């Protein structure tokens, strides 16, 4: 039960922030916090891959963009010209289409966001699987370059294809309604609801990951990170675990992309840029590589500050600087050093040893 203590604190934190924001009349902060929530989801997926499976991905924004763009294209592409086709009638019969008016008052028919989301997630899983088989055989620089290359290809394709809106991206993405008006949308009146949708998703992903890491899979992943050859020797199918983690983290990133796209009502090529991928890596590094909680805290903080524009034009430079400083002075993350120092100062040596014993349970 102790592993859910953190989740309980997270839930309390989520509620507390909302209450404070609502009572101090500063609900507008929730907008950036919602966006930060979606980015945090993507970053958590990367943390699972980098921190636990020990595989760097410099192309994670690519998966975020694959999710966001698939969803955006499918929910904005007008299907009305195909209304006589069999496929259209099938979708209509299954109530998987939604009619709405576009900016000029014309009626357009799109795929329902749920279908779009399912397609987006399946597509990202498929791409991650196909890419992952060869990529994850690589190590070190080769893995970094291969994932970086993948990210750049996604960016170039998005930037160069008319279907994806080229440099303008895709706008006018409809809200993702679950029930009545409630759903993911940029509607000002639904800010609080959207904040909860985003952060409950983050919370659920945390629950999923915590349980995953606490299981056989988690132990296998840690073994792979520690010593890949040794873990293969004791019978862990390292390739399989790495691939599954890669696919999972890609799907989570894609889900985050879907969410943010519906929240913003659009997506642009900058979501696929290399700098976004590097930023995710920077956050995972700052959070302490193998610490989901550290990553979550750093991600919320840094993304929120960045989205509020506190870093101004030094935004990218700041994340570059964070990368260097963390890797030079605290390769285990900011939170880890402060914790360990405080630990040493607070608790005398003998007790630490005894506590170290109990930790091994």
């Amino acid at each position, binding site marked *: 039960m102790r592993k859910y203590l953190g989740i309980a604190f997270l839930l309390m934190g989520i509620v507390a922030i909302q209450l404070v924001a609502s009572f101090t009349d500063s609900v507008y902060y929730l907008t950036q916090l919602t966006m930060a929530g979606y980015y945090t989801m993507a970053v958590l997926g990367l943390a699972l891959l980098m921190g636990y499976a020990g595989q760097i991905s410099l192309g994670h924004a690519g998966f975020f963009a694959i999710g966001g763009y698939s969803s955006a294209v499918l929910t904005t592409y007008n299907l009305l010209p195909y209304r006589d086709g069999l496929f259209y009638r099938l979708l209509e019969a299954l109530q998987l289409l939604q009619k709405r008016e576009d900016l000029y008052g014309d009626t357009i028919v799109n795929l329902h966001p749920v279908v779009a989301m399912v397609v987006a997630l399946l597509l990202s899983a498929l791409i991650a699987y196909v890419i992952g088989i060869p990529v994850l*055989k690589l190590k*070190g620089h080769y893995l970094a370059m291969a994932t970086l290359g993948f990210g750049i290809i996604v960016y170039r394709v998005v930037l*160069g294809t008319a279907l994806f809106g080229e440099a303008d991206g895709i706008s006018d993405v409809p809200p993702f309604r679950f029930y009545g008006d409630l759903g993911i949308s940029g509607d000002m009146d639904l800010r609080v609801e959207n904040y909860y949708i985003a952060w409950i998703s983050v919370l659920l992903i945390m629950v999923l990951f915590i349980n995953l890491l606490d299981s056989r899979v988690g132990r296998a992943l840690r073994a792979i990170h520690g010593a890949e050859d040794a873990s293969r020797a004791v019978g862990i199918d390292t390739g399989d675990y790495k691939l599954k983690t890669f696919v999972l983290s890609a799907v989570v990133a894609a889900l985050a992309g879907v969410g943010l796209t519906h929240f913003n009502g659009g997506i642009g090529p900058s979501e696929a840029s290399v700098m976004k991928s590097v930023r995710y*890596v920077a956050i995972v590094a700052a959070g302490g590589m193998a610490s989901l909680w550290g990553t979550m805290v750093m991600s919320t903080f840094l993304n929120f500050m960045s989205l509020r524009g506190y870093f101004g034009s030094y935004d990218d430079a700041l994340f*570059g600087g964070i990368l*260097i400083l963390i890797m030079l002075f605290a390769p285990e993350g900011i939170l880890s050093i402060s914790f360990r120092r405080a630990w040493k100062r607070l608790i005398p040596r003998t007790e630490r040893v005894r506590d170290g014993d109990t930790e091994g349970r």
Partner: protein
Amino acid sequence: MGVELFLQYIAAGVTYGIIYAIVAIGFNIIYNTTGIINFAQGEFVMLGSMIAISLHGVMPLLPSIVLASVVTMFIGALIEVLFIRWLKSPTVLRMIIITIGLSILIRELALSIWGEGVRALPYFTGNEVSSVEIGMIRISPQVLWVVGVCLFMVAVLQGFFHFTLLGRKMRACAANPVAARLCGINTKNMVTLSFMLSALIGAVAGCVVSPITYSQYNMGTGLAIKGFTVAILGGLGNSLAALGGGIVLGILESFSVWFMPSAYKDAISIAILLVILFVRPSGLFGSKERMALKEF
């Protein structure tokens, strides 16, 4: 397609390919002495050309290029001393992230100094429209400068590594750092030297190619990934093969605009990189046995 056009494409491919090769050789020099891939390699090319362009405002072309190259060389040394030298046996992941962070910082610094604008050095001889006729094709004299200067640099580097004591010391570090240290070679200084060398050749290449391709603060990333493709194509660590790999990639890229939109041009070279990484990470010219000794 006429033969002239075909040859014209080849010439364009060779020009770009040689620049990629220089970046690849920069990767190789650092990789050989440290086992690190310096992701900020493309930034040296950018810095060299941008500094030269700024200096050209106050002095003639040749001194500004020489000075810019020397300055970039010392920036390379500074980077090594500040960020690499004092780390005790860093992991590959850590080094990757540090050099990526460096490339971002350099790029952002360049953005704040020079802005987003596209700049260029003037043509060394003639101007944009002057051309030289060689056989059936007409090429800009600047292309000859690029090819000539870069080939000259490769030749000098080969000479340096094979026939001078310092070059041999550096190769000793590449082959076996511990043994080299036992022989009294200061391996740390050799690493600094390798950063200086690769910054220097990057800067020179950036200067000679600037009139043709123009320079911008963010040109480094693309060059780095293509240079890496070339380094892999030729087999990491093998500089002469990188030259061949560069020319192959340059030509492939220049022909790629035929069968797909030029917006995807960059994607082509990266797709090639991925295919080679997946199929034959030892490179087209590299030997499998030798690469088996290296860390992938």
